[in-house]
């Protein structure tokens, strides 16, 4: 992945998130405080706006800058988590070799640590972790990534939320998609679109 593709990825993510801003916020209103859509748009808009300043940077550096931008601009619980994800990805992209598998795995680990969260707690980790696992196992099979992200997202509907604001609802949280899992799905869906462009 070159930095031009990273830019495409971010632009596609932004437009998906913008289109679904209200949905994301409404999901968050059901189990949290209703700001997830606004948070994500603010963060990814800032990333897209910053790109012109990063023209000289390589893929690794761009990903790290995306990470710090998300940390500053998203805020909330999702900011440090998405931010950590991108910073770990960026570190892995210093070497080309196995960067995706390594980077996504470290990203999922970083998120789990930072959020003190486990798989199955109905958070965005339930998308990041299966994506990392599938790439670890099968390499960058983008159709598999799409499927893993989608299944991970849909799986949060059946789960009781264990971390974040939704955790306070306990059983009442079951039956609702986790907003951070949904936005993470958009992120990986945009990645798949970017990487498979012109393929078919």
């Amino acid at each position, binding site marked *: 992945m070159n930095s031009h593709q990273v830019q495409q990825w971010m632009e596609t993510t932004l437009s998906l998130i913008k289109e679904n801003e209200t949905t994301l916020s409404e999901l968050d209103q059901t189990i949290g405080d209703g*700001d997830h859509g606004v948070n994500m748009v603010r963060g990814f808009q800032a990333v897209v706006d910053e790109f012109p300043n990063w023209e000289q940077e390589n893929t690794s550096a761009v990903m790290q800058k995306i990470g710090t931008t998300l940390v500053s601009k998203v*805020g909330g619980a999702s*900011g*440090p988590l998405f*931010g950590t994800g991108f910073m770990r990805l960026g570190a892995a992209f210093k070497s080309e070799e196995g960067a995706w598998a390594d980077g996504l795995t470290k990203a999922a680990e970083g998120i789990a640590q930072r*959020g003190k969260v486990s798989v199955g707690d109905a958070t965005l980790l339930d998308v990041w972790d299966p994506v990392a696992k599938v790439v670890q196992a099968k390499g960058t099979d983008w159709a598999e990534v799409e499927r893993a992200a989608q299944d991970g997202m849909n799986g949060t509907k059946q789960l009781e939320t264990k971390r974040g*604001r939704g955790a*306070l609802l306990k059983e009442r949280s079951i039956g609702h998609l986790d907003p951070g899992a949904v936005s993470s799905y958009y992120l990986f869906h945009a990645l798949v679109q970017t990487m498979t462009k012109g393929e078919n």
Partner: protein
Amino acid sequence: MKKLMNDSTKIVSQFLDGLVASHGNLIKRLEGTEVIVRKEMIPNKVGLISGGGSGHEPAHAGYVGTGMLDAAIAGEVFTSPGADQFLAAIQAADQGSGVLLIIKNYNGDVMNAEMAMEMAEAKGIETAMVVVNDDIAVDDVENRRGIAGTVLIHKVAGAKAEQLASLQEVKEVAERAISNVRSMSVALQACTLPSASKPSFSLSDTQMEVGIGIHGEQGMSREDVLTSYEIAELLVSHIEKEVDVTKPVYVLVNGMGSTPLLEQYVFANDTVSILKKNNVHVEKMLVGDYMTSLDMAGISLTLFAIDEELHSLLQSKATTIQWTEVSQ
């Protein structure tokens, strides 16, 4: 929903400008940030910072000043500020003896603060953090939220820091205070975010939400609305179980935003009667909007069991926008 504002994405920034325009003798805004800083700094005093999402005014900027906070960070409404904002506040509050962060127990606040602390330590600033979790509505202690009791922690830690105590000492007194402060709330009407067109949830004309947080998130349970006295009984009975009421207590009756003082003092009166009946020694009642949730209607009750040191720290003079002297 109508709000007195210009643009929901600029509401926090314009609020901060208005605050500085009105209280420029006490506070200033750190340029390019959403951080409010105390104007007069004291060499070698431990810096104290707090903050989080906005929508809780007068918290937290209203508590910046002599005897309380050195800096407050104001995120977007109900959204934890990014780590860079926390870092800017840490740097501004550092007066040479390290900085204590008073953080309410929300994932976002804790994570962003932790990231900022790592960055600050890398810059050679000593930091420590205490996490306030006074809301007993959540029974899983690890997930307990920080609500109005946080203001009392600001006061105690602020007074201790003003005595030029060390970072460790200030942290310890804050932790002792945290372990003695417990709160619980009730909402009669949900709040509406500036960017939203409808309230965060809806309560019928006969319902109340018990154990509500300060972010429009739903509470423990929805019940038929009770009288003020009955609500006081309900909250006192829960809180009393978790606070050592053989000690004297400070009582904080906190309005959630659109609860008239007329009602808040009726509730304060009921609370005091019940506590007296239960032989609890009420040292002091504080009543008013200390930590709000936008325009939510409702109340939170906080009991704070004090010892001699905590009492004298609570009583010592503070000069901030919201908290002047307790001895009123």
